[in-house]
């Protein structure tokens, strides 16, 4: 009988030690590779004198950029925290929340008033893109990855129609 009780207690302990990550419930924070102290790495966009890196803490960058952007926010289906969108002249900056801070999720260039640090803008040619970033992809979709960032360039008829910097958060 003693043996049976020992087995019983052991099984309870073993079950309790199985699986799952510590201190995380289903309502845990959303996924993210956010870093409040991230060194600038990966593909970056420059808004005036402000360098915007993916997954960087957003608030200091937004303050540095200044101006009066149009603002849109979207809550998730159930969880707390807001995805936020700041529309500036020429580009849109989107953020994602981790706990009580926002981090850069993406930057999308939407007209030719701005360009990448490598000189690519809306309307640039396929050849210019490949010269700046390399071949690969297709003639309509170019995706380049560096560290925790992705640069996605869409083209139509050999001409750039969209430039997006995207944070890799997994």
């Amino acid at each position, binding site marked *: 009988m003693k043996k049976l009780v020992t087995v019983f207690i052991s099984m309870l302990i073993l*079950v309790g030690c199985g699986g799952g990550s510590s*201190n995380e419930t*289903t309502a845990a924070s959303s*996924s993210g590779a956010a870093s409040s102290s991230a060194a600038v790495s990966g593909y970056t966009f420059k808004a005036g004198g402000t360098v915007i890196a993916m997954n960087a803490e957003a608030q200091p960058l937004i303050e540095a950029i200044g101006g009066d952007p149009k603002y849109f926010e*979207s*809550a998730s*289906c159930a969880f*707390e925290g807001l995805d936020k969108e700041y529309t500036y002249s020429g580009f849109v900056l989107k953020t994602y929340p981790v706990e009580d801070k926002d981090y850069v999720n993406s930057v*999308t260039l939407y007209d030719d008033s701005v360009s990448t640090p490598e000189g690519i803008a809306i309307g640039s040619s396929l050849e210019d893109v490949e010269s700046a970033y390399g071949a690969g992809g297709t003639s309509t979709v170019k995706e380049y990855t560096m560290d925790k960032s992705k640069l996605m360039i869409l083209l139509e008829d050999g001409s750039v129609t*969209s430039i997006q910097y995207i944070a890799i958060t997994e």
Partner: protein
Amino acid sequence: MKKKRVIALLLLICLLIGSLWFLQRLFMPKYVDEIFEGRLIEEYYENAGGNDVMFIGDCEVYENFSPITLWEEYGITSYIRGSSQQLIWQSYYLMEETLQYETPDVMVFNVLSMKFDEPQNEAYNRMTLDNMKWSMSKWNSIKASMTEAENALSYLFPFLRYHSRWSDISTEDFTYLFRQEKVFHQGYLMRVDVRPVTTYPAATPLPDYQFGETAYEYLDKMVALCKEKGIPLVLIKAPSIYPYWYDEWEEQIEAYAKEHDLLYINFLELIDEVGIDFNTDTYDNGLHLNLSGAEKLSRYLGGILRETYGLTDHRSEPETAAKWQEKVNFYYEMKADQYRELEEYGYLKSYGGRKPEE
């Protein structure tokens, strides 16, 4: 002696299973004070049966349609089997499961989830899957939904996933161990507060607008299942301004609906006709409608459903009417309570609202 040992062993096994079951119930999140959406799936089972219209889908159904309005205006009985970020395969398996409990006259499915072609997020998965009753539908939904980091064992034994909640266990976990307080109105999550639309989100160009094969596979399955049961399937796109609904997506759904002879209603194109005012009818800047908006939308859709499918007006049936009167009473009690909180606190403190300064 041998008999005694066998009995002792059996008792021990029963004790072990009982303990594990109890611990599982205790450690699973109760979704009491926040993220009420976690209870959506579970609340269906005590309301199963007698629903002429079933809504299936994500938050664009459970926050945009009021079954109580459908009842009051048309005598239509309905239920919303919605959940947060419900993926299309989850919708299919919920549909399949629902048909084990009842056979509605019409199924309504919101098409936004066609944008997801692969598993997304464990947290949302759990909210849809954990409280489904065990069945092959649940098992198949789990298999289709798991992200790479998840494992099926943690769905079979949720305690493996939630044991780390030990430090979060509160009196509420014991209070709601075996019971839940009603929160939803036939699957509708009520919000009376208002946060108007001030800007419209930009459409971020996509590299590929084609819906995925998996999404189409499950939409085909839904169509086939409804056809087999003789239930009309209605496709809808709710009037939510975000996530952005691309023209290219719209074209695909229109083409699909035409090919399969399905009624498809894109409410984004009917905002004015429905009478939705994004200054007053949304509680989160246009992502979801509030009660005012949901009632308008339900009034509009109810008219279409009644006219198209000849749905029965059950208001003259004493038993049904009595049952629904309780639901109506609860609806207006909550509505009054929400308005009281708005007056007292300036936001919906107990209903997941955001403080005005946020």
